[in-house]
């Protein structure tokens, strides 16, 4: 009975566990995630790569929430129009969120999926955690 492939093998691998990277509140309420490397990922991923991903995410969120000339202008203009301008144009934050979504997708495709991991966009978890799903490694011992 060498090659009976169950339906499970042909479908997606099962989730073995999830790791949650929590928020880092040391600089206030801005959106930052902890860069501490979780021990569960040690066997799958490089510490450096992980830190780079999280750091880039933190930088992107900082860019979204940055108080600069452009955001003040947007805010003042919005106030003058009784905030009806939000109905017509995409806010700066939303634009950066799209950028973040693209970045996460890119990282998943290039780095995380080949290692049996999946990053979840924090916006789907209310910007509370970065969820990393660890899939069972079926490449070893699948014939058993």
């Amino acid at each position, binding site marked *: 009975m060498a090659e009976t492939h169950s339906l499970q093998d042909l*479908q997606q691998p099962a989730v073995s566990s999830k790791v949650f990277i929590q928020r880092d509140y040391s600089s206030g309420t801005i959106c930052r995630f902890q860069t501490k490397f979780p021990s569960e990922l040690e066997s799958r991923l490089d510490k450096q790569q992980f830190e780079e991903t999280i750091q880039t995410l933190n930088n992107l969120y900082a860019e979204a929430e940055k108080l600069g000339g452009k955001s003040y202008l947007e805010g003042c203009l919005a106030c003058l129009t009784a905030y009806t301008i939000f109905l017509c144009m995409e806010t700066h934050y939303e634009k950066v969120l799209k950028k973040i979504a693209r970045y996460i997708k890119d990282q998943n495709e290039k780095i995380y999926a080949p290692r049996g991991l999946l990053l979840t966009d924090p916006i789907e978890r209310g910007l*509370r955690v970065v969820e990393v*799903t660890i899939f069972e490694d079926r490449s070893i011992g699948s014939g058993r």
Partner: protein
Amino acid sequence: MKNCEYQQIDPQALPTPTPTPPPHQGNDIDEEEKKKKKKKKEEKEPKRPKRKWEVFPGKNRFYCDGRIIVARQSGVLPLTLGLILVTSGLFFIFDCPFLVKHLTSCIPVIGGVLFVFVVITLLQTSFTDPGILPRATPDEAADIEKQIDNTGNTSYRPPPRTKEVLINQQVVKLKYCFTCKMFRPPRTSHCSLCDNCVERFDHHCPWVGNCVGKRNYRFFYTFIVSLSFLTAFIFGCVTTHLALRAQGGKGLVFALQESPGSAVELVICFFSVWSILGLSGFHTYLVASNLTTNEDIKGSWSGKSGEDVTNPYSHRNIFINCCSVLCAPMPPSLIDRRGFLPADESAQTGGTDIELPTLAAKSEINVCTQGTKGLLESAALSPLLSTSCPQGKPQTAHPCPDSSSPAANSDPSPELSTGCGAHHTASSHGDASPPRHTKTRSKKCKRAALHIPNPAFDVPVSPTSPDTGPGSKARGHKGASFAPLH
């Protein structure tokens, strides 16, 4: 030799095995039962895809298919709106004609602008998501519990859990919210009236019928400031009007008799102008020092306990504080009200454990091959969505026509016309598409629609299809395609 004909059996033509049939007269009942079962099964599969607002755990009400959110108790919002409309109406009817004739025609213009500002900001404060934090997913909650249990023991319910963090060299205690099953971020508080954790929680305002939090504080502030201007303006105009009428020795009573509406306005404005001016002044102080009403009342940073505590969130500069509270980039809504629930959650049938892995495998194929079909089906379903749910009927003054269906119909073709390939190319011009499509909706619906964050699904259900494409609408429609395909 016997001629044996072997016919190929068509598996689909095989009758489903039925239990041992009862005696002859039971045959009809049996068939009926079979038909019922089959119909039920069919009905279960293409189940109406549910939107996330329909299963929202907090005490909120949703209108316009999830575009508008209010607290469960509308408080005295109708009274607030009524007072503003009545006072302004009386002002325009009774005072403006006289004042235009005797003074200047700028008066109704200024009054009109202020009135419009007040009403718009009031409605925005009431109908915007104040910054509600979605409750923790079961996996997250379990992870947090595990971390807490590692440090304490589990034999009894532990004392209120807190976590200390250092924010700008200030120790801040984060409390654990038992309802939402997570540690509340700093400045977040759980509103018992709305049963939600709200970020940068200021207070729950009954006049506005909603919590005031991070996302709608600027609307609230603009509302009370413009309302204080409007009240003061009307008060001043009415006083001038009555004074002018009473000139020439005619007396105040005569003036009031001539213009009875002004008397009503005078009373209303006199009693409200002090409280509203006071409130505006108080909130101006809060904005300048980057405090919330909640923190001010509790005295979190006033150093009452004798320690050297300062507000760690203040930028130490009034101008920067004001800008960061009022002019900062508008944060997105974290509760995805209009996203669709993954089909297995909404179906709630017995066979969901099979659906979980298959959903992942099928999801991308489904979108690619049946994307347009699914979208058209969902477009057909969306009018049903808005009319079948009683909360879908807008009860407030502003009309929300069923723009969801025409908008939905206009969405599919540009975004998913070429199937899977288009799904990726759409992301490159995704920035351009949402504004174009939102113009077909009414104003309030547009505003709420834009506040929705982009992803629409719970990723655990579809782990290999991370939804990082454009616009919530595209994903919303994609989500709808799940249900009909099961």
